[in-house]
C-alpha cells in the first residue's frame, strides 16, 4: 500500500513541478520577500516589524494562490477529465489514490513555504546588517522560519477542508467555489466574532447570533497562526504548550478532513 501511495504522491509532485505557472509562483516566492524589505525602508523605527508584516501577508497570499489555482484545479481536473480513472485501476484503491494525491500536494505546499522561509531568512541575514540593529523590533534570523512554520500548519487545515470538498465535488467549478468560500469564511469570522464582543455592537446584535456564529466557526479551519507568529516576531515568549496545542489542533483538523474524505470518496459514484 505504501508503495502505491508513494507513487501517486510522486506523480502529483512531478505534475505540479512541471507546471509552468507553478514554477513562476515558486520564483515569485523566492523574490517577493525583497519587496517586503523595500517597503519596510519607508518607515523610521520599527523597520523589522514592518518587514515581518510584509512576510506574513506574503505567506498568506501565496497560500491562497496555491490552494485556489493549483490544488483545486488539479483535483478538479481529475474528476472532470476522468484522469482519476487511469489512477484508480486495480490494485490502486480509492483510499490510496486520495491519500497519495493529498501527500503530493502537501509536499509541494511545504516546498513553497520552505522557499518563502529561506528567502526571508537570507534577506534578513544579508540586508539587515549592523546599521539596522536599533530598528529590528524583535526580528531575528529565525523569524521568517517561524512565520512560515505557523502559517503552513494553519493552511494545512484548509488543505484538509479542500480534500474533504474534493471527496463529494463534481468538478473544478465546485471545488474552486467551495474552497474560496472556506478561505473567505475562515478569514472574516475571527474579526466578526471579535467585533461582537464590543459592547456597542453586542447591544444591536441578537443574542443568539454570537452562539450561532461561534458554532459555525468551530467547523471552519482557524487561521490563528498569525497571532502566534507575530508574537514570536515581536520577541514575546509563547509557552511551549500553546505551540504544541496549536500544532495538534491543525494536525487533528487535517486528519478529520482526510478521514471524512476517505469515507465519502469510497462510496461515491464517479
Amino acid at each position, binding site marked *: 500500500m505504501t508503495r502505491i501511495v508513494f507513487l501517486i504522491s510522486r506523480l502529483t509532485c512531478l505534475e505540479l513541478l512541471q507546471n509552468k505557472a507553478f514554477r513562476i509562483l515558486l520564483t515569485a516566492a523566492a523574490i517577493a520577500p525583497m519587496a517586503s524589505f523595500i517597503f519596510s525602508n519607508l518607515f523610521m523605527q520599527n523597520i523589522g516589524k514592518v518587514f515581518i508584516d510584509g512576510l506574513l501577508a506574503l505567506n498568506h497570499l501565496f497560500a491562497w494562490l496555491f490552494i485556489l489555482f493549483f490544488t483545486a484545479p488539479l483535483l478538479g481536473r481529475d474528476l472532470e477529465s476522468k484522469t482519476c480513472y487511469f489512477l484508480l485501476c486495480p490494485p490502486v484503491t480509492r483510499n490510496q489514490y486520495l491519500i497519495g494525491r493529498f501527500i503530493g500536494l502537501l509536499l509541494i505546499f511545504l516546498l513553497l513555504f520552505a522557499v518563502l522561509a529561506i528567502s526571508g531568512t537570507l534577506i534578513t541575514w544579508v540586508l539587515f546588517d549592523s546599521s539596522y540593529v536599533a530598528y529590528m523590533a524583535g526580528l531575528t534570523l529565525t523569524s521568517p522560519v517561524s512565520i512560515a512554520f505557523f502559517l503552513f500548519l494553519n493552511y494545512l487545515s484548509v488543505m484538509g477542508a479542500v480534500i474533504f470538498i474534493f471527496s463529494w465535488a463534481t468538478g473544478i467549478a465546485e471545488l474552486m467555489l467551495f474552497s474560496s468560500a472556506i478561505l473567505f469564511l475562515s478569514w472574516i469570522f475571527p474579526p466578526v466574532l471579535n*467585533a461582537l464582543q464590543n459592547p456597542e455592537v453586542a447591544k444591536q446584535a441578537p443574542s443568539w447570533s454570537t452562539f450561532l456564529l461561534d458554532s459555525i466557526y468551530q467547523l471552519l479551519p482557524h487561521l490563528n497562526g498569525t497571532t502566534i507568529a507575530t508574537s514570536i516576531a515581536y520577541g514575546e515568549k509563547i509557552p511551549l504548550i500553546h505551540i504544541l496545542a496549536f500544532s495538534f489542533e491543525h494536525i*487533528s483538523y487535517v486528519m478529520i478532513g482526510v478521514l471524512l474524505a476517505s*469515507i465519502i470518496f469510497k462510496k461515491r459514484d464517479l
Partner: protein
Amino acid sequence: MRQSFILKLILLIALILALLTTRMQYANEEETLLTSEFHYHSPSAFNKLLWGHVQGLGADFMLLDVFLLYDTASSTKQKSHVLWQALLETIQLAQALDPKFYDVYHIAIPILAYDAELPKESISLAYLGAKALPLNWQIPFTAGFIAYDTAHDYHNAAKLMTIAANAPNPPSLAIHLAARFLKKDIDDASAISFLKHMLQITPKKYHKGIKKRLSEIINKNK
C-alpha cells in the same frame, strides 16, 4: 469492510473531541479595552474586519497615509481643521490595528500636540502606547512634557513622567522632570532642554511645530 468503517468512525469522533477540547482550552483571550482619562474615539470594527489577519500591515499603510496627510495639512497656508481631524482619525486607526507599533506613537504624539494643536488627543494616545509598550520610556516621557507645557494638565504630566521614570533605563532628565512636575515646579531652561532633545529624536520633517514652541519659550524670556 464494516470493521474498517467502524474503526474510522471511532477515530473520527476521537479526533473531533480532541480538536474541540484543544480549541476550548486555548481560545483567544478577550481584548481588554484600553482606557485613558480622556475620551478616545476608537475606530469602527469594520476597519479591523477589513484588514482581517494582516492588521499589522494595515497599520503600516495607515501610517503611510499619516505621512501624506501631514504633508498636505502642513503645506496649506490656512489652518485646515478637516485635514487635521482626518489625520487624527487615521492615527487612531493605525493604533487600533497594531497597538504595539512604536512608529505611530513616535510620529503622532508630537504632531498632534504641536502641529494639529490637539494636546488632549496626543496625551490619550500616549496612555494607550504606555499600556501597549510598558518597557518604553519615550512615549510617556514625551507625552508628560506635552501635558505640562501645552495642555497645562499637571496631574497627567506628573503621572506620565512617573511612568517614564519607572520604565527600564529611563534618562536622568525623565526622573528630574517627574520630580519637578510633581511639585509643579518646572523652569523654562528644563522646557528648552526637553524640546531640544525632541528635535534630536524626531525626524527633521516634523520639526516645524516643535521649533515654533521652542521659539515661543525663548521669546517669552526676552
